[in-house]
């Protein structure tokens, strides 16, 4: 089943064409990587999918629903979770609240019930806090539940951001450079971790990454962007040997 389809997506920032003629077909359960040099338009594609920017042209469909024109929270509520290249946690809030906030769309009670703490409020809040703690436990952050997010070390902040994205209960998870700032050892752990959450939460994953080791190691398909244009797409082995890619992006010879 095709989960995400982007057709002829184009996005301009003023005169700058950040994304041109972008096409994508993502099958449910797939793990796809997007690579490309800085400024290639990778993050912009995530922002187009999640509604931060409106595509200038083209269509993006998720489970048959057109995403172009929807607001970010509507798109997120369709079960698309994401992380950010530069961590964007709610820094002054607690770890637990960071995860609870992402339950907003699932919390099924009205403003009146919230104002009086009646009706569905109690049951829903209990369910949310239980689920948030379950996620924190899975991510080994439970003992930090009451800690202010900004006090966490960098690596844990990255982990918390993924936990928060999973609180959306996503079908599709978008990871923007999850290995940024990690050493080779940590990257190995992250690769295992991504494959584990993918199986555990039955996720389809689209990830942007610079670390070739990670991309080549876990992605089933890879898309190469350069200056907003798609250079190549295919399985890792094909990408590694694609002359266009080698020439334009990888430059110094085969990668591994």
């Amino acid at each position, binding site marked *: 089943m095709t989960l995400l389809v982007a057709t002829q997506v184009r996005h301009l920032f003023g005169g700058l064409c950040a994304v041109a003629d972008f096409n994508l077909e993502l099958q449910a359960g797939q793990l796809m990587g997007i690579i490309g040099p800085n400024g290639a338009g990778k993050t912009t594609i995530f922002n187009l999918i999640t509604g931060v920017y409106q595509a200038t042209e083209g269509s993006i469909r998720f489970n048959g629903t057109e995403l172009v024109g929807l607001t*970010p929270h509507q798109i997120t509520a369709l079960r698309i979770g994401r992380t950010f290249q530069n961590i964007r946690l709610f820094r002054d809030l607690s770890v637990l609240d960071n995860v609870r906030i992402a339950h907003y769309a699932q919390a099924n009670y009205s403003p009146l019930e919230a104002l009086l703490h009646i009706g569905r409020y109690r049951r829903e809040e209990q369910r949310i806090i239980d689920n948030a703690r379950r996620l924190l436990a899975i991510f080994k952050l439970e003992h930090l539940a009451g800690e202010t997010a900004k*006090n966490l070390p960098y690596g844990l902040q990255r982990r918390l951001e993924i936990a928060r994205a999973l609180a959306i209960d996503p079908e599709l998870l978008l990871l923007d450079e999850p290995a940024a700032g990690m050493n080779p050892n940590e990257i190995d752990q992250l690769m295992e971790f991504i494959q584990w959450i993918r199986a555990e939460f039955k996720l389809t994953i689209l990830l942007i990454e610079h670390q070739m080791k990670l991309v080549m190691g876990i992605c089933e398909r890879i898309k190469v962007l350069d200056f907003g244009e798609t250079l190549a797409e295919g399985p890792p082995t094909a990408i590694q040997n694609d002359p266009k890619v080698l020439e334009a992006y990888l430059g110094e010879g085969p990668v591994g």
Partner: protein
Amino acid sequence: MNIALKYCWNELLEQAWLVPVLLLIGFGLAFAIPEYNWLNKYIQLVLMYIGINIILTVSLNLVNGYMGEFSLAHAGFMAVGAYTAALLTMKVLPVAAYPVLFPLAVLAGGMVAAVMGLIVAVPSFKIRGDYLAIITLAFLMIVKSVIENIDYIGGPRGIPGIKRLTTLPWVFFWTVATVWMIRNFVYSKYGRGVLSIREDEIASDLMSVNTKRVKFLAFMLSSFCAGVAGALFAHLLQFISPRVFDIIKTTDVLIMVYLGGIASIGGSILGATAYTALMELLRPSTMAALLDWLPEFVFNPLNQYIIQNLGVWRMVIMPLLLVLVMLYWPRGIMGQREFRGFIPRRDRVAHRRLNDPGEKP
């Protein structure tokens, strides 16, 4: 403190009956004090002002503290509530025969103010920070000049002869009701939405928070409470005019918010109480009465040069206090922290400052 004692104290704070019992005692006192004249009339009046200011402070804190905007419109919402309620009790509701109808007028004042809150919420979708502050200031000025230009409601002269319907029990009731609602709102998905908007609005939207809806609700609730406070205020002062609800009134509330500390209900209650009491102390009559016991040769010059001029000094002290608090004490009495008793049990583990009293860089 003795460990056993501390344990007992903590146990006591955990009891489910504690809050209802305290409320019952409070209500009892609110009825008994005026009934049996336990405190003199002036102190009773101050108590009522404290209650009204608590409502104003907690509700402004929702927007300025929890949401992180800087609204200056609060006195405008207060004016809307005051005028609506005053007109109702004077022209529509037969409150003379049925004083029990008074809460209807207060409720109506709050609801009309809440509708006005929507008007300020709409620009907040697009505009934040300083620019939104200017828009709220414009709103305040528009409210004032609209009132000044409607002759039916007294224009710049205002409305005299409002019935004195605000009593200590009513103030107590409305204070408890509004603070309770705001506290409930804060500890719900909407309240967390408000906090996440303050932290990072785009990330908030991307975590499924309907930011527009949350802003609507927060502005409406905040202005509703301001309207309620205005209605109570009008029926206590018995006279309202556009001048009563100018920028000075907003500044008063701002000081109470920042003195008490942002994003804290307990802080707002303390801030409002402390500031109201301080301002009352700085009244010439109060100060003179308090220092009465001094020997005459000290009291007389003091009275002549300082005490009688306190009215002027208040206007100096007030803005100065705001500047000083914001510069040197940005956290106020309990910024970002909360009384344990105000936090629903379920939320306590998530409340950052309980486990993290020290500010780490």
